[in-house]
């Protein structure tokens, strides 16, 4: 499996956000995208995932294998953590792992409504979906935001394991936490 992005250009409200981006990723490779706020990192991820349209260029990707972890993770305030996990487990037809819930300290929050979770806990809940989804292409937009140190290390290990299992990851991050990056793109200034 390969992910190919060729001469990709995107505009948002008439303003060119991304121009002529090229990269190709094979199984087990990780790409890090950095850049200033507003430089188009999120737009690039949304375009690769097919959520946003692009002006010119080409994207070759198996859309069935994509998981996008964006800024908003679709967490419903009225539902409990358990209900949320149950829904996405059924959705991906894959039971969530109790060990992961314990590691992320979500086990004790199972019966709490999502409205009472902190930003970090919501991010952890979104991550449990990522691990439950069994997708091979991870598009992660600032996955370490709001996470405590322990959970960040846990996520780093998961990313490494994903790579060892021949998965592909594109990670937007301002931090230099990931060590074994194969490629990186800096989208520069706004």
């Amino acid at each position, binding site marked *: 499996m390969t992910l190919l992005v060729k001469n990709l250009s995107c505009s948002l409200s008439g303003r060119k956000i991304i121009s002529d981006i090229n990269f190709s990723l094979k199984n087990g490779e990780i790409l890090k995208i950095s850049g200033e706020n507003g430089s188009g990192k999120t737009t690039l991820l949304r375009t690769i995932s097919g*959520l*946003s349209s692009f002006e010119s260029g080409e994207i070759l990707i198996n859309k069935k294998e994509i998981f*996008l972890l*964006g*800024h*908003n993770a*679709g967490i419903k305030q009225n*539902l409990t953590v358990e209900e949320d996990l149950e*829904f996405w487990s059924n*959705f991906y037809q894959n039971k969530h792992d109790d060990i992961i819930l314990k590691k992320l300290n979500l086990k004790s929050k199972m019966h709490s409504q999502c409205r009472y979770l902190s930003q970090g806990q919501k991010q952890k809940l979104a991550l449990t979906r990522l691990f439950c989804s069994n997708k091979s292409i991870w598009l992660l937009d600032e996955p370490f935001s709001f996470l405590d140190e322990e959970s960040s290390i846990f996520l780093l290990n998961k990313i490494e394991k994903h790579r060892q299992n021949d998965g592909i990851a594109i990670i937007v991050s301002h931090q230099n936490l990931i060590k074994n990056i194969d490629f990186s793109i800096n989208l520069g200034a706004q």
Partner: protein
Amino acid sequence: MRIYRLIFLRELRKVFSYKANYIFSLMFYSSIIFLVSIGLQGQNNILTNVAPGLIWVSIILVLFLSFEDIFHDDYYDGTLDMYLIENITFYGFALIKSISHWLANCLPMIIITPIIGIFVNLDSEVILPMMITLIIGTPALSFIGCMGSSLILSLKIHGLIMPIIILPLFLPILVFGIGALDVLIFNGFEELFLRQLALLAGISGLSIAFCPIASAYIIKANYD
């Protein structure tokens, strides 16, 4: 199909887990009817005559409160993104939202209508036809309302835009809904009642068939 069923069940769980939403709707519906019945105290004949119209108008007013946030949360909290990545179509999403809106908002009001009817002196013989017109007519309100809700999705300030756009579309439903009951109450023409009911069913059928398609296009346009 499995995923659509899951989303539909989640929608229902979401709506019914937040009891305040539909309980307030029911309270508001009862309040309007109750206030009018107090306003027309001692004029039972007038109250009986206007009861069908009053019930229909009250239901429309209450529904307007629920239309604004039908798609709003899913659009802004990333749920729709996740669905689209998983190949859930805009049409399927709009259809699920419309059906769950009817079940969560219209159905409870229809169920309490026979009790509410006591306040407005609704004739016991009219209760069943009233319920039938509501069951047949209110799906059109939900489906058209969902279409209106998709129109204001990306507007930060929308105020009265949606009511102004969709209120004219509610007029035929109101006319045939009340008209069907009027011919039955005042003239006793069952055949005319059934004809008006058939027209009402036609409007609902068209709304169910076309409004989710229109909603899907509008939400997609908001995305692009």
